[in-house]
């Protein structure tokens, strides 16, 4: 049984999606999705503990041995990501029941859960597969279902956002597949390990350079690296709350993982970073994201969109870790994957509660809500502190590692810039806190009360996680540094 775990990670959500599509009642579809989403983290946890104890798991899909067949491969990095994605799915699902029922038409609810499970299947598939083309297929499975989920948003601008994301996302995925095509025509293989071992002979020929460029740009589109982030704010702002929380916590992270996999495991650090100026490019773009997107966030009137811009800035921290390309810096980047997923997931879930209670996310609508919903808004402040990077929260942990990584490379000025961009997040988070706690109650908030437990508990769980993993970092940093080590060593 446990030998089949890697396949189950993908097969279960896929089957679940099929069953959901046959359901006519929203609550039945929810129940199916709940069973699947709660099974996933158990499987991922069992696999990750196996990997940490005995090293990577390799699984030959359909019994065809790699490199001819599709290999599913779980190592520290992919196991970590599988756990992250499935945990977020499991936490969000209980919340989804009330939130989805209030935001989406009854007849569309089974379809929403179908797409949710398909998206989960795609994201888990990207994390687990050891085959470049298989990763493309999963990328499109997750993207297409994402477009559908976004388009279910109430506002008609959700349709425009979904369309815009479809165009940008497809260009990104096509760039990726073009890069893989060039790699394939030069090495004759699609298996990550196999490609890495064959690259030596043809390294630094022009098609390989072009492949690296295509894959990097394509994945940068998917992970919303500044300035390729234009699809993200509207997509997050107008999607249903559950979809926003899930996507913000997982989709961009998985894209980062796939890029890491190519840059470090397939092409190798020596080729990617030593001979090309990728470090400099990434650090420049990351800084632009950290400052540019944070500045834009400060001036948003729609809180959901403000947090979306904040996501672009936070992705900047992750890519900064990639740009540093040393053990500590990369650990910081990978641990921020996990940390940002928790805090942004928590914030978007809490905003979903606000939408459920008062129906607006305009900043003036939130005025005085702290008096009516003290638990929700208190949790919001804690998650917000984590975005800023206050000691004792996860945000601080990742920034600490990034700062130390920058010092190790001798770029002390980067540390000042890290602090500077954190100050910008103080401004936009502080603006919400001020409005929520220190202003008279808005007319929308008059009747607001704390939400039902089903919504409150998942959000509070994520907030508690941001504090817990801010103090006890042995799991997150331990796995992340193992993953970073493996990435820097390469697959060869």
């Amino acid at each position, binding site marked *: 049984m446990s030998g089949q775990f890697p396949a189950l990670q993908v097969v279960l959500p896929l089957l679940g999606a099929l069953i959901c599509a046959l359901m006519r009642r929203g609550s039945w579809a929810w129940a199916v999705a709940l069973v699947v989403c709660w099974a996933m983290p158990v499987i991922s946890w069992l696999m990750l503990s196996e990997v940490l104890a005995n090293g990577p798991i390799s699984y030959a899909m359909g019994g065809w041995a790699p490199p001819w067949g599709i290999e599913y491969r779980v190592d520290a990095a992919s196991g970590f990501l599988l756990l992250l994605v499935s945990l977020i799915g499991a936490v969000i699902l209980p919340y989804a029941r009330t939130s989805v029922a209030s935001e989406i038409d009854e007849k569309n609810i089974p379809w929403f859960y179908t797409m949710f499970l398909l998206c989960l299947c795609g994201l888990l598939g990207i994390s687990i597969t050891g085959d470049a083309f298989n990763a493309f297929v999963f990328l499109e499975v997750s993207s297409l279902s994402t*477009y559908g989920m976004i388009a279910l948003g109430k506002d*008609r601008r959700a349709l425009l956002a979904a369309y815009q994301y479809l*165009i940008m996302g497809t260009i990104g995925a096509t760039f990726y597949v073009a890069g893989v095509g*060039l790699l394939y*025509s030069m090495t004759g293989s699609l298996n990550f390990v196999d490609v890495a071992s064959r690259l030596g002979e043809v390294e630094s020929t022009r098609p390989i350079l072009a492949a690296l460029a295509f894959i990097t740009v394509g994945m940068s589109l998917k992970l919303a690296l500044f300035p390729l982030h234009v699809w993200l704010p509207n997509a997050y702002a107008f999607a249903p709350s559950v979809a926003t929380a899930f996507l913000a916590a997982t989709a961009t992270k998985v894209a980062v993982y796939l890029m890491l996999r190519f840059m470090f495991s397939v092409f190798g650090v020596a080729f990617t970073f030593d001979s090309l100026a990728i470090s400099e490019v990434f650090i420049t773009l990351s800084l632009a994201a950290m400052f540019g997107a944070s500045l834009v966030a400060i001036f948003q009137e*729609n809180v959901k969109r403000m947090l979306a811009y904040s996501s672009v800035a936070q992705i900047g921290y992750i890519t900064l870790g990639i740009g540093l390309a040393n053990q500590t810096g990369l650990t910081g980047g990978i641990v921020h994957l996990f940390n940002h997923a928790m805090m942004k997931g928590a914030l978007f879930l809490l905003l979903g509660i606000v939408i459920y209670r008062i129906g607006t996310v305009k900043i003036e609508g939130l005025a005085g809500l702290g008096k009516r919903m003290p638990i929700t808004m208190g949790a919001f402040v804690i998650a917000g502190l984590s975005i800023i990077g206050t000691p004792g929260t996860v945000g601080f942990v990742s920034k600490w590692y990034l700062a130390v990584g920058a010092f190790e490379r001798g770029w002390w000025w980067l540390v000042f810039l890290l602090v500077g961009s954190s100050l910008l997040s103080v401004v936009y988070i502080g603006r919400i806190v001020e409005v929520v706690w220190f202003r008279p109650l808005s007319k929308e908030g008059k009747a607001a009360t704390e939400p039902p437990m089903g919504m409150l508990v998942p959000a509070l769980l994520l907030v508690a996680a941001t504090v817990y993993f801010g103090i006890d970092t042995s799991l997150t940093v331990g796995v992340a540094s193992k993953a970073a080590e493996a990435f820097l060593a390469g697959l060869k």
Partner: protein
Amino acid sequence: MAVLENIVNHYNHWITIFLMVSGLYIVVARGNMVKKLVGLSLFQTSVYLIYITPGKILGGTPPILETGFSVYSNPLPHVLILTAIVVGVATLAVGLALVVRINEAYGTIEEDELFAEDDGQL
């Protein structure tokens, strides 16, 4: 002369590049959402050629075991691209469905008119 030879010898790549860039240009330059999707499809399709054209071996037969033939074309690129075509069709279908919904909600599918309608809203 060497340049010309380069172009002739790699004509399949030049065709790919031309199709790719024209597809991308249509996506960027057109305001009509259906035309954008046409450009996107062209762009996606051009990438298939990167896989398909190197898969053909000059003088090779289709990949069927038969005595007397020893040079085969590689079948894997075709299988991969079959999958990619399905993905492309699915993308186009989702895109067109979105355009239909946008037309119902706004009464237009011209990008500048759409953005003008939503101007000044939060």
